[in-house]
């Protein structure tokens, strides 16, 4: 065994992204960049009605358009006409005689020789739909008179029952209540959805496309085409952003394209235009919540009671698992003895929301943090102090009564934002500004959050990942993982781990595009789990290979294994000083027929969870973050600008610090868009804001002048080198911090996000 402590060469150092060069010279292949011989282009026909019965599909005029290869409807699906992953409530193509449940329901797929022809033909298809009154709000859905699905509009209810809230309220000095609403948010990844399905030489189908979860796509295509998993191979193309929006949706896109490929026998390319993308793909869920919190006069939280309703839209899709995260995070990062939470999933005749960075938690974290801010104001307790008094520490129990024993960086993140923001001084500065300005007011907002890493108790059957590592005769290394790169830097972190464990230079390591033919089902790339799961699997495989190389080294040099060190492309006997380059060593190993490939498999121990009471180990571990934001509100226009922000994140261990900074900056700006102006507008269930001219995402002008980032490292013993995830926690504190800052600036509580200028003006005018 190796006992010499090997100094880390790669982990934690400043590394250039391994995938940067093809992205910067235009050679990277995204879904739309692939072209195949005899390919057909597809376009979708949408129902364009909120609720009704599909009576007839008239395709004649479309078939007359020259260049149309075919129009495919429910009749042309060889397998199951079913896309729903968790609840089987969503058809692939709506059948005649069945219900249309929202504007973006897909009725047919047109295949043609060019994209323009496919689009033109799609517009010529006429649908006869007998309209029904539509359910367009959560309130209407709860009446349960008009049903989106039978037998009820409220099919899902999840709960937490910890302690006894009535007792808790009795022993409280003050009780605070509040009602909140968080609206939709569109992921607005820059690359729209896109898939190509090709009949392949293996008598099956190969699917290429932009996605987070190749194994979901594989399952869905196999089901719709009535074929087996070993006849469907899925290869992820470069993916131009996802943020959750490419978790389940690509399975649907691939299924439509697969119907076209199956029926035409030709490669079928389906690339969404932005309108189709926004009209038919998932969003962040709107959540209405009601909070009641009991506190002692010193500010200790005694009891919390929460009711939240989330709009699942027309189909449940991922909502049941999103709701689990909403449930667990609703009471915030606090140690509260009595907790009662009820979360309900509600059907409406609207777009089905799904996964989006934070996964059902930013909406309730905004609410609970608004409550904390209210408590801090009313009890005149400093907002950071109030949070420090109540936050989770080692030995605390979460809202689900999960006892935390390690890796709890919550306190440090709070202390650090106080320090880096120069808290006392910052408060004086803002006060001085407000004393000298009449039309503009500034406010400081604080937020503090926690994030359960990976899928947790609700998805533990998916929480395992593989990695295949292979050393080639020339000393280069292939790494194949099941987790996807979507811009977050997965390939770079995985390459760093492989380089660290093998001692090879990072430039010699190629982390390939995920391909279901090479790596067994590794679960989804979601929930900020890739570093921990694919990372650990890679580490296992690579360290196994390293042991074999050390054996070869010892054979050649007579060194003792415990004296061997590795790194920077060579192995070294620390005693004799003899060294052999990685390439040379591999050459020797090959001559000896050593096995230089290995599959690592990583899974976590199962979590104890009581679903009836919502009690137990909700997640393997938690990440923590705290944030301070200074905003400036124009009292005449209601316009808000973020002046500066300070944010601190406990990531366990920063494997790739540069990558983490990039994630936090991007997450902050995305969270800021959600808090302030990203506003999805509807008319009769149709989305009116279906491109970037109406759905406004942050441009380079809106970013705060200063965004100071602090990284806390409280190692997680089961993470690779101690790491936890950062993808989602980067966004989660921001909407809450901004809302609180506006509240302080205008002296009225922000209870809805986005806090648009109209909403702010309305609040200012109310008395």
């Amino acid at each position, binding site marked *: 065994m190796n006992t010499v402590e090997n100094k880390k060469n790669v982990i934690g150092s400043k590394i250039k992204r391994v995938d*940067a060069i093809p992205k*910067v010279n235009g050679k990277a292949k995204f879904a739309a960049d692939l072209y195949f011989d005899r390919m057909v282009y597809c376009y979708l026909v949408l129902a364009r009605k909120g609720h009704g019965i599909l009576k007839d599909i008239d395709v004649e005029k479309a078939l007359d358009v020259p260049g149309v290869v075919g129009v495919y409807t429910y009749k042309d699906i060889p397998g199951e006409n079913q896309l729903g992953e968790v609840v089987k409530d969503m058809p692939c193509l709506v059948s005649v005689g069945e219900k249309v449940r929202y504007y973006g329901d897909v009725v047919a797929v047109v295949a043609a020789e060019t994209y323009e022809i496919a689009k033109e033909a799609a517009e010529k298809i006429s649908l006869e739909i007998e309209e029904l009154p539509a359910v367009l709000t959560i309130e209407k859905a709860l009446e349960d008179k008009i049903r989106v699905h039978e037998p009820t509009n409220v099919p899902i209810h999840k709960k937490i029952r910890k302690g006894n809230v009535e007792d808790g309220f009795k022993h409280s000095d003050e009780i605070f209540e509040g009602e909140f609403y968080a609206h939709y948010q569109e992921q607005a990844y*820059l*690359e729209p959805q896109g898939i190509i399905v090709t009949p392949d030489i293996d008598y099956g189908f190969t699917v290429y496309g932009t996605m987070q979860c190749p194994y979901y796509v594989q399952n869905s295509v196999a089901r719709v085409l009535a074929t087996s998993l070993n006849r469907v191979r899925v290869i992820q193309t470069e993916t131009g952003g996802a943020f959750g929006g490419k978790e389940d949706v690509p399975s649907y896109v691939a299924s439509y394209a697969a119907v076209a490929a199956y029926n035409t026998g030709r490669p079928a390319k389906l690339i969404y235009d932005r309108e189709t993308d926004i009209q038919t793909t998932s969003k962040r869920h709107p959540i209405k919540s009601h909070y009641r919190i009991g506190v002692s006069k010193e500010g200790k939280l005694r009891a919390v009671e929460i009711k939240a309703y989330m709009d699942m839209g027309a189909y449940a899709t991922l909502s049941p698992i999103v709701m689990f995260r909403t449930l667990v995070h609703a009471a915030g990062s606090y140690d509260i003895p009595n907790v009662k939470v009820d979360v309900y999933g509600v059907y409406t005749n609207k777009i089905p929301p799904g996964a989006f960075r934070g996964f059902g938690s930013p909406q309730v974290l905004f609410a609970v943090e608004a409550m904390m801010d209210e408590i801090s104001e009313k009890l005149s307790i400093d907002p950071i102090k109030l949070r420090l008094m109540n936050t989770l520490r080692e030995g605390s129990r979460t809202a689900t009564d999960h006892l935390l024993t390690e890796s709890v960086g919550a306190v440090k993140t709070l202390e650090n934002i106080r320090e880096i923001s120069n808290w006392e001084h910052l408060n004086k500065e803002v006060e001085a500004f407000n004393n000298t300005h009449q039309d503009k007011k500034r406010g400081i907002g604080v937020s503090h959050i926690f994030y359960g890493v990976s899928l947790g108790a609700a998805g533990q059957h998916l929480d395992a990942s593989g990695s295949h590592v292979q050393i080639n005769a020339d000393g280069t290394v292939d790494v194949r993982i099941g987790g996807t790169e979507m811009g977050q830097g997965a390939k770079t972190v995985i390459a760093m781990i492989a380089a660290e464990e093998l001692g090879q230079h990072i430039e010699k390591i190629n982390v390939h595009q995920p391909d279901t033919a090479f790596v067994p089902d590794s679960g989804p790339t979601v929930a900020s789990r890739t570093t921990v799961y694919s990372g650990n699997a890679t580490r296992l495989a690579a360290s196994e290979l390293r042991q074999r190389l050390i054996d070869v080294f010892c054979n050649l040099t007579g060194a003792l294994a415990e004296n061997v060190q590795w790194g920077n492309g060579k192995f070294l006997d620390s005693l004799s000083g003899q060294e052999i380059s990685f390439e040379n060593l591999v050459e020797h190993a090959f001559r000896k027929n050593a096995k230089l490939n290995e599959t690592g498999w990583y899974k976590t121990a199962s979590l104890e969870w009581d679903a009836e009471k919502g009690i137990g180990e909700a997640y393997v571990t938690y990440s923590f973050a705290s944030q301070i934001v200074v905003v400036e509100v124009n009292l005449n226009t209601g316009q808000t600008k973020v002046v500066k922000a300070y944010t601190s994140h406990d990531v366990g261990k920063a494997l790739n610090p540069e990558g983490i900074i*990039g994630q936090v900056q991007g997450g902050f700006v995305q969270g800021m868009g959600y808090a302030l102006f990203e506003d999805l507008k509807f008319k009769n269930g149709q989305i009116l804001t279906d*491109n970037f001219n109406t759905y406004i995402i942050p441009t380079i002008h809106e*970013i705060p002048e200063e965004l100071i980032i602090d990284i806390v490292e409280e190692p997680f013993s089961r993470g690779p080198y101690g790491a936890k995830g950062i993808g989602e926690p980067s966004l989660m504190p921001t909407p809450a911090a901004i809302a609180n800052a506006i509240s302080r600036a205008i002296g009225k509580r922000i209870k809805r996000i986005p806090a648009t200028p109209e909403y702010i003006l309305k609040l200012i005018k109310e008395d």
Partner: protein
Amino acid sequence: MIVEFTLNGEKVKYDVRPDKRVLDFFRDELGLTGPKEACGEGECGACTIIVDGLNVHSCLMLAAELDGKDVWTIEGLKGPGEKLHPIQEAFVEAGAIQCGFCTPGMVMSTKVLLDNNPSPTREEIKKALEGNLCRCTGYYKIIEAVELAAEKLKGDG
């Protein structure tokens, strides 16, 4: 119709459908897939190319308009030898690339800026890139990259 123009430094002549979007013509017919489509409406800048020294949304330009123009796509941008162009190097070094879908457009807009203004201020950088959306980076490292590129280019000159 026949259009003659300079593409990435070479004189070319093509028979095009005049109302075809330049973006589609380049991508579908010439295999130049560097310019990307993210909105098709001139709102995102992912399809940015350089036409007679100006950054242009190729999703809004028609093939007929190419005639007589000097046109550059990301594919034509190179440094000395087969190396990256200093702007591309700066994007890599500053960590300004995440998913990379906005990158070709960002780089082309940066090129136009620095060709005209070798030492831009922060405000000038923001102005020059306001038509290029990025959903991943929050723009901070993109601004750093432009500043780094400006330095590199000055060092070269």
